[in-house]
């Protein structure tokens, strides 16, 4: 490679880089830094927070640039190594991690603390993309879905062990999104994720019933629903009911001369029953604080002092910002300490209070632009692998956005998911910038030139 070619390659790369995308990333980082400067100003470790943030930012930008410099296909070549790395770091966290707030999710290395779960997620996305790419000829098989899940579940389980429910939850949209855009069989995908969804929503329904109708009589609907959680005759009756419904629908379909595979219909009651049973199992496993968060989401006014305090204070902060906001450093909710986690998980509420509607819609707009550019990168990716990686990252980012902003606006339960690029958090910023660097790389190398 001569000097001239290298120069051309360099100018060629800069010519192919998506500057809109980079501007959106930079805009979010700047807005996030501003919000953090203001929100953290009343905390005890303000200067330490600033130092960490700008160090992470510098490292992150370096990592972003470095990632842009070499062909992303290296990641596919090294997929096995990356997968091993993912398993290694989450396992190491469980062994070496320090316990903080009941979770063993931080690793201290060379004086820095690092949260590896998010990095593991990106690594899983990269590994799964490689797997789905290699399964392209048999993409319609059920085995593709099951094997793909089998690839991801060990990492998720290790993250759940920390226990970090929120981060484990963010794996789900990435996996689902990638399998969806990869072209798997929709029925199978729906069945598998429907089963999972039911297994999770059954305990949520239980909690909801317990909360809204704590003294429901046994013969009322909530009482009957609650009685199924005790695994008695009511559970058996519910399973029988599912089977009967499946049978009736199948008979109805054949009477209407709709040709449907019997197996598909048999799957419905079996899936529902299995989901119910696993839901009961999950219900018994659900931790108290997880239930409280759900309670705070369903009925925020029920206990303003307890679990729902965060949700109410966050909504007050956002709403009271109005059109123009109260100005940086002068939001009463943030500066007087009413808003919890104001520079981390609830930073968006701080933006809402101090910068108003223009601030929040700016961040939301930048996010939509960012996601649009990632989807565009997926569209124009030179190979399936890049396409899958971009789609997976777009779904993850969109999920985090919806969960975090929805939480600040009282639309979602308090999940403890940070807003990438905007929330304070060194390792999150670092990992996000690295991940976004991969997307930039995929876009820049959309034409298979080098």
């Amino acid at each position, binding site marked *: 490679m001569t000097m001239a070619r290298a120069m051309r390659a360099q100018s060629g790369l800069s010519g192919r880089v998506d500057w809109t995308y980079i501007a959106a990333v930079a805009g979010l980082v700047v807005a996030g830094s501003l919000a953090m400067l203001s929100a953290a100003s009343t905390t005890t470790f303000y200067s330490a927070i600033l130092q960490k943030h700008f160090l992470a930012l510098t490292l992150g930008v370096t990592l972003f640039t470095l990632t842009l410099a070499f062909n992303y296909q290296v990641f596919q070549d090294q997929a096995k190594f990356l997968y091993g790395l993912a398993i290694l770091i989450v396992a190491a966290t469980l062994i070496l991690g320090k316990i903080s707030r009941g979770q063993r999710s931080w690793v201290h290395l060379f004086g820095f603390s690092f949260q590896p779960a998010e990095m593991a997620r990106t690594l899983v996305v990269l590994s799964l993309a490689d797997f789905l*790419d*290699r399964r*392209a*000829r048999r*993409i319609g098989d059920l085995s593709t879905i099951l094997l793909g899940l089998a690839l991801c579940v060990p990492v998720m389980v290790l993250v759940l062990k920390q226990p970090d429910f929120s981060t484990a939850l963010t794996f789900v949209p990435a996996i689902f*999104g990638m399998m*969806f*855009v*990869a*072209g798997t069989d929709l029925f199978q995908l729906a069945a598998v994720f429907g089963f999972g969804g039911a297994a999770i929503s059954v305990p949520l329904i239980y909690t909801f019933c317990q909360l809204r109708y704590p003294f429901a009589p046994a013969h009322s609907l909530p009482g009957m629903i609650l009685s199924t959680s005790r695994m008695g005759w009511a559970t058996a009756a519910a399973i029988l009911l599912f089977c009967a419904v499946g049978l009736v629908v199948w008979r109805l379909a054949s009477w209407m001369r709709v040709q449907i595979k019997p197996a598909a219909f048999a799957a419905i009651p079996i899936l529902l029953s299995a989901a119910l049973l696993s839901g009961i199992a999950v219900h018994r496993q659900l931790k108290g604080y997880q239930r409280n968060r759900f309670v705070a989401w369903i009925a925020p006014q029920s206990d303003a*002092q307890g679990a729902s*305090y965060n949700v109410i*204070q966050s*909504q*007050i*902060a*956002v*709403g*009271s*910002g*109005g*059109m123009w906001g109260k100005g940086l450093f002068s939001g*009463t*909710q943030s500066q*007087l*300490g*009413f808003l*919890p986690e104001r520079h981390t998980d609830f930073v968006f509420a701080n933006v*809402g*209070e101090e910068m*108003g*509607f223009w601030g*929040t*819609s700016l961040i*939301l707009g930048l*996010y*939509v632009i960012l*996601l*649009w550019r990632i*989807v565009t990168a*997926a*569209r124009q990716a030179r*190979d*399936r692998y890049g*396409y*899958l990686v971009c*789609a997976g990252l*777009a*779904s993850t980012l*969109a999920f985090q*956005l*919806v969960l975090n*902003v*929805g939480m600040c*606006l009282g*639309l979602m339960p308090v999940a403890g998911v940070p807003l990438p690029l905007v929330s304070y958090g060194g390792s999150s910023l670092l990992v996000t910038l690295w991940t976004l660097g991969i997307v930039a790389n995929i876009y820049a190398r959309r034409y298979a030139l080098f």
Partner: protein
Amino acid sequence: MNRGGAAPRERLEILWYFIAAMGLILGLRLAQMQLIQAGEWRQAAERNRSQMIHQNAPRGRIYDRGGTPVATNAPAFSLIFLPGKDQSRQDLKPLALELGRQLSRDSGELIETLEQAVRMESAIRLAENLPTQTMFRLSELKTIYPGVVLIVEARRYYPFGRFASHLLGYMGKMSQREWRERKPKGYRVDSRTGRIGLENIFEDELRGRDGGLRMEVDAQGRLKRVLDKIPSEAGSNIHLTIDAAVQRAADDGLRGTLTGRGAAVAIDPRNGDLIAMSSQPDFDPNAFLSTDPSEVKSTVLELSEFNNAISGAYPPGSTFKPIVGLAALGEGRARAEDAVFCPGYFELGGRAFLCWEHKGHKRVSWLTGLALSCDVYFYTLGLRAGGAAIERYARAFGIGQRTSIPLKSEKSGHLFGPETRKRAGKGWYDGDTLNLSIGQGELTVTPLQMAIATAALANRGSVWRPRYTQKIVYADGRPDYVPKPERLGLVPAREDAWDHVQRGMEAVVSSGTGGGARIPGLNVAGKTGTAQNPHGEDHAWFIAYAAKPGEPASIAVAVLVENGGHGGATAAPVARKMILAHFGMMDPSAPRKARDVPARVPAPVPPAPPFPVRGRP
């Protein structure tokens, strides 16, 4: 490296539409919250960050007729706790322990109070009327525990202590139910209101508008700065017709009697003004505002809210005799000159009705009969007048009816006579007439009724509605309220009958049983009474009115000493002290300490309040 067919790109588009829809939903929600509902959320934020510390307004003062304050205000330090938004129960414990030590109170109770404040998210008073020393010790806590604040505010202060307690009333806390009723009027849960007496009746007038400091607080309840200062407005002042000197004489006089229980009322016969009203046993209204909760508790436990002067009904005994005499003489059924022989008993229907003087008074006529209070004479007089006439006259004097003094729990007493019996469907016998003639039987009166009747005897028939308000000086600039004297009725009787009755009452004091009320230089007329009491020792009564020579009577007094025995011995000296105080005279019988004591007793000077009083006078 393409392995297999092309990826289904349309699925990517579906994913993108889904993401865009989510973004749209979030954007719409943002617009709803920040553009449409912004006002409501801003109010919520304002409620969050600002806390009101209320400062009790100085209550309106109460003055006696001469302008001596009998209820006023003194500055006091209060300890306030401002709960923080995210203060946990564990944070409260050390504070409660520390406060419990400083205030010598149970820390468990304090924790409950603190938790209540956190639950209700409003400031709460932990202690009031703190002594200066405690205040200085507590001010150190402010720096350690967030949410602890000391403020200075006005508290009620009664300079004379035990003084007209039942009339003035006292300040106390409200029950939960009462507070809910009063809440719309701006009362707070820890507001104190007048419980009984004038403090209760004039609550709306006396109560000022509380001021306060609007403070910015953080989530821990730490004060950041003062946002606003709202000055308090004092309540309206009330001037009473009460004469502090006479009131003191009545209070002290009753307290110094045999049993220390009873009532004394003084009325101005010219207009019905209440000069004094005392009921014993009484209480010190200051004790309810003490810092020491145990002292307040014991005061409440021992409290006798019963105002004997208006709620106690007693048989009037011989003090009823002037009315019986007026009925007989006024109706022309008897003449003052007619003599009656008293052998010590009176026979009716084969039954002997005794005179209190078992040896008998021998020959008595009107003047001697009243002066010596001869029962046999009045049996005779009563039979001549007839039960119906006595009942009519007694009713004209207001016996058996409420005087409609604006005070709560006034009793009407009970008048009995042929008419009352007929209405009840029962018969009337001569024996009843005899009982009524000496003020016994079913007859009961309140000391206030007796004072009104005495005033009517003094002014020849005007029955006044008792009045204690001289004027109300409104704080908001409204013209003063000055109630007019109100005549409830006039006793119709012949002039010579009035002459006889008044001369007879003068004879009681000058040469009869009421000698204990004699005052040289004054015309004092009265009547003793010793009411038989089935429950124990006789009640002692004395009614009197007094005038300077050549002037109309300016004071009428009724004194009752429960179980005091003989009226002339126990009750008359109290009435005498009150009359002396009314005319500003020294007690000539009391030993003089120094020669240069002024003849006129100066109005009592209230003791200085513990702190200089600031604010509106």
